[in-house]
């Protein structure tokens, strides 16, 4: 049994002294576990970092075995994100959410392409955070928990959609929300139009997708949202409140 495919490294756990137990995401094979021999060694460590896009090869004698993963670096997303706290937090959150939410060995091409887009722009200031929100919306759709931002669930109008029902995941217009607005999740404008994806809008987006990820994708497995995802939300909130330095 073997396959060769471009893959994004989602998760790494030390195994022995120089090896890593890895989860990678590929377009054709989905999330896949394997042993990266030498993944923690001096030579392998630059390649085997979360978020990196690699040309991966998986080999095992039987399909049900863990198998061995080898890889050649294609896009060093981890290195590009390392100097920026926000970019690194986005990278860790995206990888942790994908590793925890996607079922093993089931192809989810849209999730792979969404994550690949996110990692391609991870070094561009201001682009990574909205890209993560879009990726999480795409991931929810891919997992069967799609959110519906096409029209207001109450009035049917397609304009001025400003909220989302936390129960159904359908958009609600500002006028229809009325006094219920405080009970609804805010829908950031950049998800339905060309509005600027500033920090408050991104925080609203993270709260929106975080609610449905926690309830549906992770809740179905009785697992909490990954700590890296929670830490990202906290970081964005602190930045908005001006509690931390930029960088």
């Amino acid at each position, binding site marked *: 049994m073997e396959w060769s495919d471009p893959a994004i490294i989602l998760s790494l756990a030390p195994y022995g002294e120089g090896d890593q137990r890895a989860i990678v995401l590929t377009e054709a094979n989905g999330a896949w576990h394997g042993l990266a021999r030498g993944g923690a060694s001096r030579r392998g460590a630059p390649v085997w*970092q979360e978020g990196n896009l690699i040309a991966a090869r998986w080999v095992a004698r039987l399909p049900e075995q863990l198998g061995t993963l080898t890889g050649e670096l*294609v896009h060093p997303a981890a*290195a590009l994100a390392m*100097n920026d706290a926000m970019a690194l937090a986005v990278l860790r959150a995206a990888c942790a959410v994908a590793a925890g939410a996607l079922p093993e060995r089931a192809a989810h091409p849209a999730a792979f392409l969404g994550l690949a887009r996110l990692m391609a722009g991870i070094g561009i200031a201001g682009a990574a955070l909205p890209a993560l929100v879009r990726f999480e919306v795409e991931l929810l759709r891919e997992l069967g928990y799609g959110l519906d931002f096409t029209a207001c669930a109450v009035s049917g109008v397609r304009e001025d959609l400003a909220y989302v029902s936390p129960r159904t995941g359908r958009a609600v217009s500002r006028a229809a929300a009325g006094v219920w607005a405080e009970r609804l999740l805010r829908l950031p404008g950049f998800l339905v139009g060309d509005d600027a994806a500033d920090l408050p809008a991104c925080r609203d987006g993270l709260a929106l997708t975080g609610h449905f990820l926690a309830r549906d994708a992770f809740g179905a497995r009785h697992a909490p949202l990954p700590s890296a995802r929670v830490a990202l939300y906290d970081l964005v909130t602190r930045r908005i409140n001006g509690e931390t330095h930029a960088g």
Partner: protein
Amino acid sequence: MMGPEIESLVAQVARLPGLGPRSARRIVLRLLSEREGRLLPLMGALAAAAQRVVVCSVCGGLDSVDPCSVCGDPAREPMICIVESVADQWALERASVYRGRYHVLGGLLSAIGGRGPEDLGVGRLLARLDGSVREVILALPATVDGQSTAHYLTERLAPFGVRITRLAQGVPVGGSIEILDEGTLAMAMSARRLAE
């Protein structure tokens, strides 16, 4: 074939880093065949280390006195270099490029390893920032976990107004551009500096 004492010794040695059962048997055989010259001195050294070596209550390093000889040295510069492990501290001491003090975290923030901010012992570090410390150097690995920890510590240390620096990352000494991985090249390019 082997007595239980030898088997037990082989099993203990085989659990050490870098060793397996085969190399453990070779080591045990050498120790037993040179009892006076190797086994007894090793036993003495192990017993002394087990009895005397302690974790420094200030920096988290290892020494036979507490506070350790680095923390207790008045000639050390008023700087703190934060490292992941004692091995990193020893590497910096070997290089003789730094004459300040250390702070050993004992690990990094890691979702997989289940280490959160509360496990880093940041309180012990912050308690050392009494105004006499001029600079804090973050000498943490250039990995996702290492740099996440560095960003977290930067955020926690910022209110103290102390100068915070990080180790440079890029082309290693003796490294040819051609053989460097793309990640190192990207970091080296972004950290380029003015040629003088």
